[in-house]
């Protein structure tokens, strides 16, 4: 296996990184109105259920996407303040519960 000049490799890696950065930025823009799971044939590639999925043409085929593309579908994904509050509370409970468990376990070991 022949060795390559590492500077030459870095140039290629920088090029790949630049290409991907452009694509990711563009994906961000496109995804404001078009679901990122919707492919070029307007079929849904998601592995989860979505209310925009229409019945597939045949069993086992992908669901056509029924979203009209006229509004930012992400508003449906964004969390509600209440849900955020609940999640925040749950995180706190998880951390406090884990800390309590650890402290009890340390105390038992010491006993």
């Amino acid at each position, binding site marked *: 296996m022949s060795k390559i000049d590492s500077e030459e*490799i870095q140039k290629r890696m920088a090029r790949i990184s630049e290409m991907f950065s452009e694509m990711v930025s563009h994906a961000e823009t496109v995804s404001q109105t078009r679901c990122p799971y919707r492919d070029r044939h307007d079929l849904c*590639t998601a592995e989860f259920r979505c209310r925009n999925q229409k019945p597939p043409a045949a069993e086992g085929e992908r669901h056509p996407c029924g979203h009209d593309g006229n509004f930012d579908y992400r508003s449906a994904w964004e969390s*509600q303040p209440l849900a955020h509050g609940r*999640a925040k509370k749950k995180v706190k409970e998880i951390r406090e519960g884990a800390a309590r468990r650890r402290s009890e376990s340390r105390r038992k070991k010491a006993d």
Partner: protein
Amino acid sequence: MAELSDIGNEFIRQEIEEYLERPEEIERNIELFARVRPAMQAIAAALIEGEDGEVDRLTKLALADGIEALEIMDDGLIAGMGIVGIKFREAMIFVPEVLACARAMKAGMKYIEPILSDSGVEPIAKVLMGTVKGDLHDIGKNLCIMMLRGSGFEVVDLGVDTSEDEFIDAIEEHKATILGMSALLTTTMPNMGKTIEALIDADVRDDVFVMVGGAPVTQEFADDMGADGYGKDALSCVSLAKKLAAQTA
């Protein structure tokens, strides 16, 4: 000046003819593909089609035939990805197709990476990436993985619906330095905190930096959960991973 007919690969000819509109891009790609050997045109064509198995096979074959790794990168993989970028920009393909092409590129890079490593170019760091338990959304994670790989990280994709035990096993198995967790749902987001606590219980928390991201996640949540960093999108995920990797060096 090269002509379209100078390109031997029919698929590449069609791609240029059908999808490229800007004169300077048409000219540049005709010049490029007209001078590259057929084996590289075939790799580029397979990559544009998102056929990872074919890119895998052709790259392996090209290296076995003595073609240099840099030539495969330049004339096959990067050249093909250039067309993918244009098609995406012009709304002829979308995120799922781009991700398929990125997977195809990874299939080719798999054979190039040992050569890069032999030449002293090592991955920046090894990163584990997974969507947390109960969450099946993977586009954000997959875009992050694409960006991380393209920026020189080695990435192990743990997929979606990843349990705490799977994260722990992966840390132990792969000896990664960074763990990335993503969640798209407010209801599954607390599972990131749960996983971090499980890492502490399994005594592996100090083995990795934990970065988190996903639509409902914020810096505040990341801090609450005890994560080491938060990335709001794929680009900031890479900056964050670089920052964290620098701390291990």
